[in-house]
C-alpha cells in the first residue's frame, strides 16, 4: 500500500511539473512577440489592476475605466477596492514583494515614502499638464522637480454650522471675512450647558482644526523643504492654544467625550453648534438628523489670513508595472478632464482639474459649497515628509494631552517639536 501511494505521488508531481513547464513556455512565446512591437507599449494586449479605497467612488471609477477602454480597446482594467483601514498594509506588502497594482490611489502622507523609494513612475509633461491643477497639489505630489502623482481631487476645510442653534441663541450667522474674535465670541454665546449644547468641538485632528489655525497664526507645521518641524514657534502655540481654550472653558466636549462619540455625529444630532470639517463631510451632514439646518462658512480670519490646508488624492503608476506605458497613460487619464467631469457628476468629490467643479458645488442646494473652492486658491499643501506617519504618531500621542489640559500648550508643543524633529532627522 505504501509503494502504491508513493508512485501515485510521483506521477502527480511529474504531471504538475509538466503543466507548469508548458505554462512557462506559453508565457515566453507571447512575451517575445510583444517585445517586437515594444515601441510605445500602448498597443499591446494588457490587463491592468487599479486599486482604490473608496467604495462610494467605484461607480465613477468604473465609468472612467470604460472611457479609457474605448480609446484603448486592447487594455483591460480591473478595479480593486480595499478598505482604508487595510489599504496601506496591503499596498506595502504587495509593492515590497515586487507585485503591486499597476495604478493606484496615493495620498499626501504616504507620497514621499513611495516616491523616494523609487516605487512610483514619473509622469512627465506629455502626460500631465500641471497648469490644469491647483499649484499646492502639484507641489504636494512632486519630488525633486518631477511629478509622480496626477492630482485627482482635492478637499479643503470649512466651518459647518447649525442655523437653528444660531437662531435660537440669537447669534448672527457667520459671514465671509469673519475673524477669530467673531468665532470665539460665537462659540461662547452658543454654548448652552443646560441644553447640552456645545459651541464647537475641538477635535484633535490636525487637518480639520489646528493645522489650519497654526498657518492662520503665521506659523507652520513643517517647512517647505520638509526637514524642519514648526511646532516649537509661538505662532504654533497660538494656533493650538485656541482649541485647548475651548475645552478648558467648557465650550467643547472633552477629549474623552470625543473619543467615545465621534464629534461629527454629535454635530449632526444638534449637540454641537459648529464643526470644522472637510468638504468630504457635506454629503453625510446633509443626511444627518439636523441635515436641513446645516450650512457651511469659510474659515475665520486669523492674524495672518484664513488659509485652509488643502489635500487631495493622486493617481500614481507603479514603477514596477509590467505595462508601464499603459499604466502611466491611465494614471494621467484618470485625472484628466473627462475623468474630472465624470467625478463631478457623481457629486462625491471635488475634482482637481480646473474648471470642472461646478456640478459638485450644486450637489447640495442648501449648503454654500462654493467656499471650499474659494479656499483652494490660497490653500497650504498638507504637511508631509518622507516618513510622515512617524511624526504623525507622536502628534496623536501628545496633542490630545495638550488639548485636554494635561500638559500646558508650551510644554507639550516643545516636547512634540523635539520628538518630531528627531524623527525627521532620521529621514536624512
Amino acid at each position: 500500500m505504501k509503494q502504491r501511494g508513493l508512485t501515485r505521488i510521483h506521477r502527480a508531481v511529474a504531471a504538475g511539473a509538466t503543466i507548469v513547464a508548458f505554462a512557462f513556455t506559453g508565457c515566453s512565446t507571447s512575451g517575445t512577440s510583444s517585445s517586437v512591437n515594444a515601441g510605445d507599449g500602448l498597443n499591446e494586449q494588457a490587463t491592468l489592476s487599479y486599486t482604490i479605497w473608496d467604495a462610494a467612488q467605484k461607480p465613477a471609477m468604473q465609468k472612467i475605466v470604460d472611457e479609457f477602454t474605448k480609446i484603448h480597446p486592447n487594455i483591460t482594467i480591473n478595479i480593486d477596492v480595499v478598505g482604508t483601514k487595510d489599504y496601506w498594509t496591503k499596498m506595502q506588502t504587495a509593492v515590497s514583494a515586487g507585485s503591486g497594482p499597476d495604478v493606484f490611489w496615493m495620498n499626501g502622507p504616504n507620497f514621499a515614502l513611495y516616491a523616494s523609494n523609487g516605487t512610483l513612475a514619473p509622469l512627465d509633461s506629455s502626460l500631465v499638464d500641471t497648469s490644469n491643477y491647483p499649484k499646492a497639489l502639484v507641489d504636494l505630489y512632486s519630488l525633486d522637480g518631477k511629478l509622480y502623482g496626477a492630482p485627482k481631487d482635492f478637499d479643503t476645510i470649512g466651518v459647518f454650522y447649525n442655523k437653528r442653534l444660531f437662531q435660537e441663541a440669537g447669534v448672527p450667522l457667520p459671514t465671509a471675512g469673519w475673524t477669530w474674535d467673531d468665532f470665539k465670541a460665537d462659540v461662547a454665546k452658543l454654548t448652552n450647558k443646560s441644553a447640552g449644547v456645545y459651541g464647537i468641538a475641538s477635535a484633535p485632528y490636525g487637518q480639520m482644526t489646528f493645522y489650519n489655525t497654526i498657518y492662520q497664526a503665521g506659523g507652520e507645521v513643517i517647512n517647505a523643504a520638509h526637514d524642519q518641524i514648526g511646532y516649537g514657534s509661538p505662532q504654533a502655540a497660538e494656533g493650538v492654544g485656541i482649541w485647548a481654550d475651548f475645552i478648558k472653558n467648557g465650550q467643547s466636549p472633552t477629549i474623552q467625550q470625543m473619543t467615545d462619540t465621534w464629534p461629527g455625529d454629535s454635530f449632526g444630532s444638534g449637540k454641537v453648534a459648529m464643526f470644522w470639517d472637510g468638504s468630504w463631510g457635506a454629503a453625510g451632514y446633509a443626511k444627518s438628523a439636523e441635515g436641513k439646518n446645516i450650512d457651511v462658512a469659510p474659515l475665520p480670519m486669523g492674524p495672518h489670513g484664513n488659509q485652509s490646508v488643502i489635500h487631495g488624492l493622486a493617481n500614481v503608476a507603479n514603477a514596477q508595472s509590467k505595462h508601464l506605458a499603459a499604466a502611466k497613460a491611465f494614471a494621467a487619464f484618470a485625472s484628466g478632464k473627462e475623468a474630472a467631469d465624470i467625478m463631478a457628476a457623481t457629486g462625491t468629490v471635488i475634482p482637481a482639474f480646473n474648471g470642472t467643479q461646478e456640478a459638485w458645488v450644486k450637489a447640495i442646494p442648501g449648503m454654500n459649497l462654493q467656499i471650499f473652492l474659494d479656499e483652494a486658491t490660497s490653500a497650504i499643501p498638507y504637511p508631509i515628509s518622507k516618513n510622515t506617519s512617524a511624526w504623525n504618531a507622536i502628534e496623536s500621542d501628545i496633542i490630545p494631552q495638550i488639548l485636554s489640559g494635561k500638559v500646558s500648550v508650551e510644554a507639550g508643543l516643545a516636547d512634540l517639536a523635539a520628538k518630531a524633529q528627531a524623527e525627521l532627522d532620521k529621514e536624512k
Partner: protein
Amino acid sequence: MSEALSGSAAVHRPGRGNGRPWLRHWAIHLVLIVGSAFMVFPFVWEFLTAFKTYGGSVLVPPQWIPDPWTWNFGAVFDSIPLGQMALNSVIITLARTLGQVILCTMAGYGFARLNFPLRGPLFLVFLSVLMVPSQLFLLPQFEILRSLGLLNSLEGIVLPGLFSAFGTFLMRQFFMSMPLELEEAARLDGANPWQVFWRVMLPLAKPGIVALAVFTALWSWNDLLWPLIIVSDADKQPLSVGISLLASDPHNQTNYPVLMAAALLAMLPMLVTFIVLQRQFIAGIAFTGSKG
C-alpha cells in the same frame, strides 16, 4: 443541579419523582437565561440597526428602535457582490475545513499514540507556530505564493490554511484522553497503526472532530487579512473582505445600517452550520453511554 454537575443520565433521585423538566432545572435555566441574554445583547443591537436610516444610526444619544423602519438589505447587494463573495467564502471554508480535519486528525493521532524519535521536540516546533503573531507571516507568505504563481486565486487563499498547529494540538488532546483498551485490543489483533486509526480511533473521536471542524470553519469564514492581501479581483474575494470594505469609510461616515445588514447576512451560513452540526454533539452522547 446535581445531575448537571455530574453529567450522569442514568440516575433517579428517589423522592423527587419525574417532575417537569423545567421545574426540576429552574435554577439552571435561570443562570443560562441570564447568561445567554448577556451574550445575545450586541446581536440585538446589530439587528435593530440594520433597519435604521443612516441619520438614525449615528444619532446622539443612540436611537434604539428604528424610526422609520428602513429596508437596507437591497443596498448591501448594490455595494458588494454578496452572492459571489458568499460562494467564495463557502468554497474556501469547505476546502480549509476538510483539509484540516483530515490532516490535523492524522497528525494529532501521530503525536498522541505513535512513538517515534524526536516526537517531543517536533511537537514543540508545531506549537511554536502558534506563538508568532500571524501578521509577521504576511510578507513571507505573500512572497511564497507569488513564486508559486498563486496570487489572486482561491487556491492561494486555501493553501496555507490547510495546515494547522492548533488543529493538531486539539486532536492530540482528544486522542490522549481516550482509553487505551480498544487500541490495545486492535493492536493485539495484528492491526497496523493506520487500521487502528481508521477503524477504531476515528469513530471515537467524533466530538473532537466536530469541535475542530466548527473552529476551522469559523476561523476560515471570518479570516480577513490573508484573503485581503493576496486577492485583488472582487469576484474572488470572500465575504469577510466585502464586509470590511463596508466598515471602512474613508471619512468617518460608515453606513452603519448597510454594514449591519451585510454582517447579518454574512453570519447566517455559519450560524446554520453550527445549528446543524450540533446534532453531532447529541450523537456523541449516545456513544458515551455505550462506553465503560
